[in-house]
């Protein structure tokens, strides 16, 4: 086996003999130590011509390495092929230079001896190493410049944005009419979004540079979760979704964690769940996975009955600047940095994030984190929850995902009641002249009825178009029109 390997190596070296720009000097020699071949680099470096060098004794060029035994045959001092030999090579004019060399030899089946020396001038290695160090330093500096640049740019972007947001808020309170207030709200919304985007980019670059440090403080867990829920409950209600919160009762009340980082993870997953779900439920489930004297491992699940993610899209999910589909970015907004940041934060807390999803039925994002326990003892206190539907349960009685995705599956009785609910909400929002909300409920209805009947599809689409028109033109005819269409739809529904 070894011989075959060597054969291949020697063949390869032979193949490279004709190449001109190698840095190695390659010399082939026979059993008597007589040079049989030399590559172009060798000829050049050693100052011989190709004809002169063939027939020379190898010991004349590379001294100290070879000796001749009593039979007049070549022997090395050291034959270990893995080790490099440090020696001196002599040029034709008897000047010399340091080399680092490898020597190998083989005896073919018909007893032909081939030896090979492969040598590199040490100063070349040194200069290569030096170049490497320079390149590494350069890279390090570039990275530093890059992260400084990102930090500076984001800061510079944030400064004027703060001005915009502040003054918009000011302007809002200065007694504007309805149309002006609506414009101001749009400006505010855009500015807030941009702020989020900038913060994400800043966090991402910090995480990339390894500069994001966790600040572990004692945290009251029930209060913490209640805050998370409070952040999202408005959006959930507005979209007509239902929030289910399940917290295992054996979770310690006091834990040590970086609240900001953990809330970023949860907020991100929760807002995704809300964003991508049109009807049904969003569920946050928290369990205790394991506990030791010093540490507690918590398992969080965020389950939705939204648009879902296909297997193909799952692989791209946690990469930076990727949303499953470019069109998703445009429909739902976002930088595509959120999940990448989430993943890195989870990993910083010694955890891992998982995703399970069926396209069209919903997704489950789950992650575990290992947190230090606080000195204070006691299990989670349910009285701290202001959100009323919270279920504090022992770990084993948790809901399964099937319980929530059933609600939104197409064609089930639940579907008709969902349509019904949305129609009702639509009617109420119309009474209140809130056409934007009304449009949202109409979109929900459209999604629910899609594919059932072409006529119904068309009616709902017309309704949506009309509603959008009412956003800027609130003539009575349009309102009547909407009401007529709405009654058509409900009639169709009850048939």
């Amino acid at each position, binding site marked *: 086996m070894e011989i075959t390997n060597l054969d291949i190596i020697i063949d390869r070296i032979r193949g490279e003999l004709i190449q001109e720009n190698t840095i190695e000097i390659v010399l082939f020699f026979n059993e008597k130590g007589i040079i049989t071949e030399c590559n172009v680099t060798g000829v050049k470096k050693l100052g011989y011509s190709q004809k002169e060098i063939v027939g020379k004794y190898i010991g004349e060029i590379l001294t100290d390495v070879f000796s001749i035994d009593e039979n007049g045959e070549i022997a090395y001092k050291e034959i270990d092929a893995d080790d490099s030999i440090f020696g001196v090579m002599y040029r034709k004019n008897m000047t010399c230079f340091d080399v680092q060399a490898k020597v190998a030899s083989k005896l073919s089946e018909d007893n032909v001896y081939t030896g090979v020396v492969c040598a590199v001038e040490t100063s070349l290695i040194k200069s290569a190493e030096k170049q490497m160090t320079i390149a590494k330093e350069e890279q390090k500096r570039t990275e530093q410049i890059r992260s400084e640049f990102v930090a500076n740019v984001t800061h510079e972007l944030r400064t004027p944005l703060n001005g915009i947001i502040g003054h918009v808020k000011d302007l809002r309170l200065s007694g504007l009419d309805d149309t002006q207030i*609506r414009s101001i709200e*749009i400006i505010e*919304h*855009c500015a807030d979004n941009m702020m989020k985007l900038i913060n994400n980019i800043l966090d991402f670059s910090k995480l990339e540079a390894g500069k994001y440090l966790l600040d572990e403080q004692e945290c009251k867990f029930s209060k913490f979760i209640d805050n998370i829920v409070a952040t999202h409950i408005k959006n959930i209600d507005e979209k007509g979704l239902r929030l289910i919160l399940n917290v295992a009762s054996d979770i310690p009340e006091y834990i040590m964690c970086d609240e900001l980082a953990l809330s970023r993870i949860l907020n991100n997953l929760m807002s995704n769940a809300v964003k991508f779900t049109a009807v049904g439920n969003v569920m946050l489930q928290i369990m205790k996975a394991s506990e030791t004297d010093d540490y507690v491992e918590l398992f969080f699940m965020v389950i939705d009955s939204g648009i879902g993610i296909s297997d193909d899209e799952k692989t791209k999910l946690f990469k930076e600047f990727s949303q499953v589909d470019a*069109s*998703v970015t*445009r*429909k739902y907004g976002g930088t595509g940095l959120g999940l990448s940041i989430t993943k890195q934060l989870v990993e910083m807390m010694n955890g891992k994030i998982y995703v399970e999803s069926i396209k069209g039925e919903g997704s489950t994002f789950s992650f575990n984190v290992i947190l230090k326990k606080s000195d204070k003892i006691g299990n989670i206190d349910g009285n701290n929850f202001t959100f009323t539907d919270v279920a504090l349960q022992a770990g084993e009685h948790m809901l399964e995902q099937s319980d929530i995705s059933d609600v939104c599956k197409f064609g089930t009785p639940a579907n008709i009641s969902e349509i019904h609910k949305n129609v009702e909400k639509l009617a109420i929002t119309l009474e209140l002249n809130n056409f934007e909300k009304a449009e949202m409920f109409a979109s929900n209805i459209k999604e629910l009825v899609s594919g059932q009947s072409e006529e119904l599809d*068309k009616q709902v*689409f*017309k309704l949506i*178009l009309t509603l*959008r*028109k009412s*956003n*800027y*033109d609130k003539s009575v005819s349009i309102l009547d029109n909407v009401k007529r269409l709405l009654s058509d739809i409900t009639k169709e529904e009850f048939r």
Partner: protein
Amino acid sequence: MKILLAEDDFASRKFMSKLLGEYGECDVTVNGLEAVDAYLMALEDEKEDNYDLAVLDIMMPMLDGYQVLDTIRKIETDRSIPIEKRIKVIMTTALNEEINVKKAMEIGCDAYVGKPVDVEKFTVLLGRLGFKAN
């Protein structure tokens, strides 16, 4: 006059629908598929007038502006609608590079407006295409 607007960004949609509302009845769609649906619905419903003008964003979900324009032009050819009765199409986008303009023109758009839309220029453009504000 009937106008079809297709724009996925909320803020731009509001702004454009308000602007176009001064020229006539403006139907607002939020993605390419809706735009094509709305166009077909108007075309097939005998009681309704066809659209005179479509303002299409290029980067949209479901179908992009190019695809919408292409579909509309194909339908028009299929139904042999005379050239003077064909819908006028303005493309709007933040992709202001020449290549995008060229592509849009090749598919058959009548004008191309870069974002952010400049109201005065846009008004001039609409005038040139023969549209007057009410």
